[in-house]
Structure formats: C-alpha cells, structure tokens
C-alpha cells in the first residue's frame, strides 16, 4: 500500500486501535515508527572462546611498548606514571616519521589479526549460496551456521572483529557509540513502516529509514520514552535520508526484502553515513507496540568501516587491536561487491542487533506547518 503521506495522522487512529482493539486494527490504515536506541555488532561469543583459538588480539599499545627500549619506556611513560589511555597519542605515532598508524594503517607491518575461526555466527545468507563460492557479486568466503542451526550464514564483519576485545562483551566500541547517540542526538535512525493495515500481520508494507535531528526523550532511568516525536532531517525541504525497502509483518515480526540503504551513524566522535548494500531488517515488535528488537544485515563497505575504526581515538588503545592488522584483514575478508578493476571485494557481509522504541516521525511538510502555527 502506498502511503508516504500517511504518517502521523493515520498513526493516531491506528495506534488507538492497536491499544484498544487489536483484533479490529486491520480495518484501519496506519504507520509504525521506531527510533533506534542501540546498535551492536552481532557477536557470537562462546563460553570458552572457542571461536578464537589463538586468543584475543594484541593491542596497538602493546606493539608500541614492545618497540621501545627500556630507557624510552621510562622516559615516555614518566616511569610508568602515564597509563594506557593517556599515552594513546604516543602509541599510535608508530610511523617511520612518527605518523599516526591508525590514520595511515599501511605504514607499519604488524602481525596478522586474529580472526574468528569458529563455525557459529549470527546473520543471514546474503549471497544465496550454500558454500560461499564466488559469484558475480561476491568473493569466495567461508559460511557460518547460526547458533540455532541455520546454515549458509554470511558475516565476515564478525569474522574480522570477533577476536578483538573492543567488540566483544565488555568492550567499549559499540557501548561508547550507543552512549554517545543517547546523549548527543547524532546518528539518530528512524525506521518508519507505512501501509500497515494490521500491526501484527500485513503482507505488504514499506520500510523507510530516516535520520532524526532530535535527541532521545528519556525517563528518569535514562531509558527512551516510547511514542516520542522526532523531526526528520531535511535538505531543501526533503529528507536527507529516505531509502526504502518493502516488507511484510508476520505475527508481529517485520521482515523486509533487500535494498541499498544509507544510514546515519555516530559514535566515538565519528560521524559516518555508510550505504549498507542489500540491507534487510528483521524486527520483532512487542505485543504492546512500545519496543522492538531485531537484526540488520547487509554488506558494509570496508572503506567506511576503516574510516570509523581509525577514528576511534582512545578507544583504539583499550579495544586492543592493531589498525594495520585490522586493515589488512578487512581487505582479505571482504566478501561482497568486487571492484570492477581489481576484482577484490570491497564490502563485508555483516549483521547488527538493534533495540528500538516506538516513536512518531515528523515529516518535513508537517514541520513547516507546525512552525507557521
């Protein structure tokens, strides 16, 4: 059902119907909107870290430390008084002329990154093959199986970062990013589902991804308040981000088809806006419509990922990885969208877990009307 203009007016009647008369909601057309609160790289972590038989990666700080004489260690760390976080700027300046080896990761040659060797991962089958052989759109890679037994899973991003502390449980890369999103109003992703006749079952809906310019409205515990309204970011009166995919809702679970979607992303003081190729979304909407959890899958380009990683700042030091090793491994593990000239793949299959809260999206035309009121 077509209905970009649907948005807010229909949402009311629809949500009222949802709350009061769920069984009769199918009679009314409407819109469901969610604002993404948390965005985590989907990580499978076994109890004994079987997926990383060589252990976790060695950090940039350690490589820097190893390369110093005893005398230099004492001098640069003021006899150990300058701790890891504070010597970040020194530790990344490992280039031949003191260059930042995270900004230019090819300046040094560190030992290879330890990557995931396990069989299990979260994600989806993105290339359609069962064995990961090369196709016109992909490079040869090894498949995973999900923890609940679904085979043919593509998730090379997990393979890349799965043995690096910063992305694992307790690591700060995603936690920091989510915290910053929660307090800055940057990188706010709105997911708007239009053409919804029945919020629990509808075989034809449209899912559009926007960026909001508003911060989260939080309760006293710091949790976003459901059903808050967020303005869509605009350029020349039109949404800056507005890529759509089609989908369906079955028993309260939205599952979309695949399409290229540009998303706003902010975290660790970096703003990027990668296009996730062949993005698909699976979103389980709570019975009361207030929250949703789900997974975004698709191909994430290496360039955007490395741009983000190189700008992590002090998080690089406490995430324990080498930028050089990460960069080289990312090129090797890329499994999607080969460069026409070199044939080397440029994107990583990936999966992200998201938590979202029910919201309202205020469209540009509505924003100008309200401002004039």
């Amino acid at each position, binding site marked *: 059902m077509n209905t970009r203009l649907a948005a807010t007016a229909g949402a009311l*009647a629809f949500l009222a119907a949802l709350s009061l008369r769920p069984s009769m909601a199918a009679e*009314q057309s409407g819109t469901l909107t969610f604002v993404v609160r948390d965005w985590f790289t989907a990580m499978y972590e076994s109890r004994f870290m079987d997926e990383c038989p060589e252990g976790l990666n060695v950090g940039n700080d350690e490589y820097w430390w190893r390369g110093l004489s005893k005398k230099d260690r004492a001098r640069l760390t003021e006899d150990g008084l300058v701790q890891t976080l504070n010597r970040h700027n020194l530790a990344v300046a490992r280039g031949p002329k003191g260059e930042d080896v995270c900004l230019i990761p090819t300046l040094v040659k560190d030992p290879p990154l330890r990557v995931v060797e396990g069989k299990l991962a979260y994600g989806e089958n993105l290339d359609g093959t069962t064995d990961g052989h090369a196709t016109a759109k992909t490079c040869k890679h090894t498949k995973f199986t999900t923890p609940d037994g679904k085979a043919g899973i593509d998730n090379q991003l997990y393979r890349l970062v799965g043995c690096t502390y910063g992305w694992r449980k307790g690591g700060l890369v995603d936690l920091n990013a989510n915290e910053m999103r929660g307090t800055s109003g940057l990188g706010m992703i709105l997911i708007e589902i239009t053409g919804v006749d029945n919020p629990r079952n509808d075989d034809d809906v449209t899912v559009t991804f926007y960026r909001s310019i508003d911060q989260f409205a939080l309760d*006293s515990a710091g949790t976003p308040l459901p*059903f808050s*309204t*967020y303005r869509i970011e605009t350029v020349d009166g039109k949404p800056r981000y507005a890529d759509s995919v089609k989908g369906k809702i079955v028993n309260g679970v939205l599952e979309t088809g695949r399409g290229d979607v540009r998303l706003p992303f902010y975290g660790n003081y970096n703003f990027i806006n990668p296009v996730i190729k062949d993005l698909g979304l699976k979103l389980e909407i709570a019975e009361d419509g207030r929250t949703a959890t789900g997974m975004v899958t698709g191909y994430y380009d290496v360039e955007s990922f490395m741009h983000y990683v190189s700008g992590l700042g002090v998080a690089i030091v406490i995430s324990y990885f080498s930028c050089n090793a990460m960069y080289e491994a990312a090129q090797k593990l890329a499994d999607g969208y080969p460069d026409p000239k070199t044939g080397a793949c440029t994107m990583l299959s990936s999966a992200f877990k998201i938590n979202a809260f029910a919201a*309202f999206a*205020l469209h540009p035309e509505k924003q100008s009307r*309200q401002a004039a*009121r």
Partner: protein
Amino acid sequence: MRAGLLKLSSSVIAAAFLLTACGPKEPQSSGAPPDMRRLTEEQYRNTILDIFGPTITYGGRFDPLARVDGLIQLDARAARVTPAGFEQYYALARSIAAQAMSPANRATLVACKPTAVDAPDDACAQAFLTEVGRLLYRRPLTATELSLSVKAAHDVAAERRDFYEGLTYSLSGLMMTPKFLFVIDMTEPDPVRPGQQRLTPYARATRLSYLLWNSAPDTMLLDAAAKGALDSADGLEKQAERMMESPKFENGVRAFFTDFLDLQKFETLEKDQVIYPTFNVKANEDAKEELLRTIVDHVAVRDLDYRDLFTTRRTFVSPPLARIYKVPAGRPDGGWSTYEFAKTDPRAGILTQIAFLAVNSHPGRSSPTIRGRAIRETLLCQKVPDPPGDVDFSKFNDNNSPDKTAKARLTSHRTADACAGCHKITDPIGLGLENFDGAGALRSTENGETIDPSGDLDGKPFKDAAGLAQQIHDNPATSSCLVNRLYSYALGRAPQRDDKDVLAYFQSSFAGDGYSVRKLLHRIATSKAFYDVRPTSAGTTPANAALSHEESKS
C-alpha cells in the same frame, strides 16, 4: 491564542448585548453586604506584572486558601493574614520595590527625574507616588495617604542620601497595607435609591477588573471610574467590551476555570515513576496547561457551546503529553500544537484529557470512585458524602484478589452497606473512564482482563467514555452548575436564597446564548446583581468603617 482573543469580533459582544436588551429583564437583586477579599496569589502576581512589568521577579508563597462551597475564591473573603503570611508580604514588597527602583528599571517606571539623585525631591516623589499609588490601591490615594508616603520618601532619601531609596521605602509601604492586599468594597450613598448604598466607581472598576482580568484595573478603567462612566450601563458596557477584547481576558478565564475545576490539586500531584515513567514533572505541568488551553480556545477565543467541552475532539499537545496520548507532537522542540482526535478515538472531551484523568487518580492506579466523585461535585455541583472513617479497603487493595479489574473489585467492596450508598453514585460514572490508567494513558485491559467501560449516570446507561461524555453534555446540571459557580466566583460568595431569581435569569440567558461562557461572563460583568450591595445594620462593614475614617481626612 492571545492574538486570537484580540481578533474576536466585537460584534459578538454587541449581539449578546442586544439579546440582553431584548430578552428577559434581569430581576431585582437583593445584593450582599460590602466585603473585603484578600488577593489570591495569582491576582497578586498579575497585579504586580501589570503595574511594574515582566522584569520584576520574585518568589515566595502566600498563605493557602481553602476550598469553600466548590471555590477557592470564596475563602478569600474569610481569610486573614497570619504573622508568617505578613512576613511573606513584607519580603515581597521590599524585593519588588527594590527592583522597580533599581537603575535598570527606574527610568521606565519613574516618569520624572529628581533634581539630584542623592537628595529628596518631594515634587518628583509626589508625582510618582500619586500615579503608582492609584494603580496599587485601585483608587486615588487620599491626601493623607499621599502626604505620608511623600514624607516617608523624603526622610529616607535625606538619611540615605539616595532619592530612589526613599521611593523604594514608600513604595514597599504601599504594598504592605490592607488597601493593596485586600479588595475592599468601598460604598457611597446611592443617588438613585435614597437611603441605600452603592459601590464607589473605583470599587466597581476593581470588581470588574478582577473578574475579567484577574488583575487590577488599568489606567483607562480607573479614568472611566473617575469620570463616572461606570455608573451608566453604556459606560460599563464599553469598558467590559474593551476588557474582553484584551489579551488579559485570557487570565480571567483561566483563573475561573482553575478554581472551578479545582486545578490547584496539580500542585500536589505525584505519580509513581516506576508505574508511569512517562508522567514526569513536565507532563504534570503540561497536563494542566493543556486543559486550560483547550478551555480558553473553546470558550474565549472560539466562543463555542460550553457543553461541547465534554465532547470536543480538539486539544493541544506538547511532547510529554503526546507520548502519553501516543500521538505525534507537532513541536518536538517542546512547543505546543493543536491536535484533533479521530471520531473513532475513545477520547472525547476534557474528561478524557490527561489532566482530569491523572489528577483524579491514585499515584499508582486509576480510581473510578475519585473520578466519579469529581464529576458529581465539580461539574454537576452535587455533594458526595465523605467516606466513613472505618471503611475497609482490604478487598479493593488486595493484589492477589481474583477480581482483576477495578469494576470487579469495586463490586466486592460495595457489598458493605456503609459503602454502597456513596459508591452507587460515584462508581458507575467513574467506571466509564476505566479505559484510561492513572496517568491518563489509553488501555484495554487491567491485569490481563478486558476492561468493561460501561456504566450509567443517574440510571441512563452508557457504553464507554464517549457515551459518558455525551451524557454529561446533555445533563441540565452541567450548565446550571457552571452558571452557579461563575456567579459565586464573580461575587465572591455562595448564592443565597435571595439569589434564586437572578440565578434563574442567568441560567436561562446562558441557554439562550447557546451556552456561551463568554456571553455569560459579559452578562454577569454588566449586570446590576454583580455590583449591588445591601447595607449591614450599621450601614457599613467594619472594614469599610475603618478605611472610610481615613478617607474622610482627605
């Protein structure tokens, strides 16, 4: 909204006046003895704002007023100033006077310039105190009052070597007297009715101003009083029209409905944040504001049928309220926007607004009994007896009760004869609002069981909140209660037996005017009953006698 008020056509008022002229005549009123009423906190604040402008800021709290016969306003006439209350007035007066005479404000507020800032200047002081004294006392200062104030300013200016310190002292003195803190019904012999008394023109102006603006008369109204223009129907009419066109008319409407609907309860409203995380402090403030905006828009700006307030789908939302309503906020930046609920929406009218639902609930759950009682007592002017002291709530409060819904629990509770009588007149009404929880959010179930929002009002069944709203709309007590309360509010006293004919006249006019609150206010403000006084046995009230003694010296 203020602009809207200004734009309201004066022809509407004129039409109302024509109806008055052509319709049934106002019956003779027996009047009431002259009285004195303490300014409410809101009246005090409005008065200071109007006289000194918005740059004056101050805190403080006044002695609270109790709710008497359905209105806070009625307690003002009985209220006296406690020692602690006077301390507040003293501190406020000093603070306001000091700010008014500060270097930043003095040039704006004091028209004349002293010959020297470090010495007294009686001419300039007299000019200023004459002007500001008239606004503060709502009448010209007597010669004695003025000379005492000028002398005080002179003495302090000489001692402190600061002209403005002198004015500060005198100004704060004016604000600490009963003549400012109390609205005093000054009377004079009535030339039309020999042997009878009538309000002085300034007392008439004051009564009119606090009804329509909830603030003191402005210069134009005082000028009209000075010229005797308020003694004639035409003169009164012109001033009432002017005042109802002013943005300040909104203050008058807000003040009445705040009192009538007992919105003072918001000052102590708390909700359990674990149960209702969306009902935060801002939502609390905004809920009251939403209700008042709806009322002002409905009755003052658009001049619609008062009864339609109970069925209207139009409201105003801010972001915190939009979250509770689960509707989009037009202004996510914190501003207000209008919102129209769909005709199929369970919400209809002010009874289903967050304000009424939340304030008439417990901190952690809804209450059909409190809501039913509020409808009976506040909107229909029907008295519901207080519960007995030994009432047993155990069945109702039992968390393990097999009765999942409030309706089922109340049914069990009503088995006690002592409780049944009152609950029969409150619960069947309040149960109609059970689709809304204690914070006013929509719900369809309680403890997993589907809520049945049906009930009845005086034997007339309804299916849900919309049905209840329609019954309140159609109930004759709804409009007669409004008339009764507005009349009481205007006069500052509960209606007496002698007021029966006048009340009947206003009720019939209200219906004839399409239940327009705006026209009703206009009728009351220009009625004889609003100004009539009857003498006490001694001819004057004690307050009047004490104050007229001073005036006689002038």
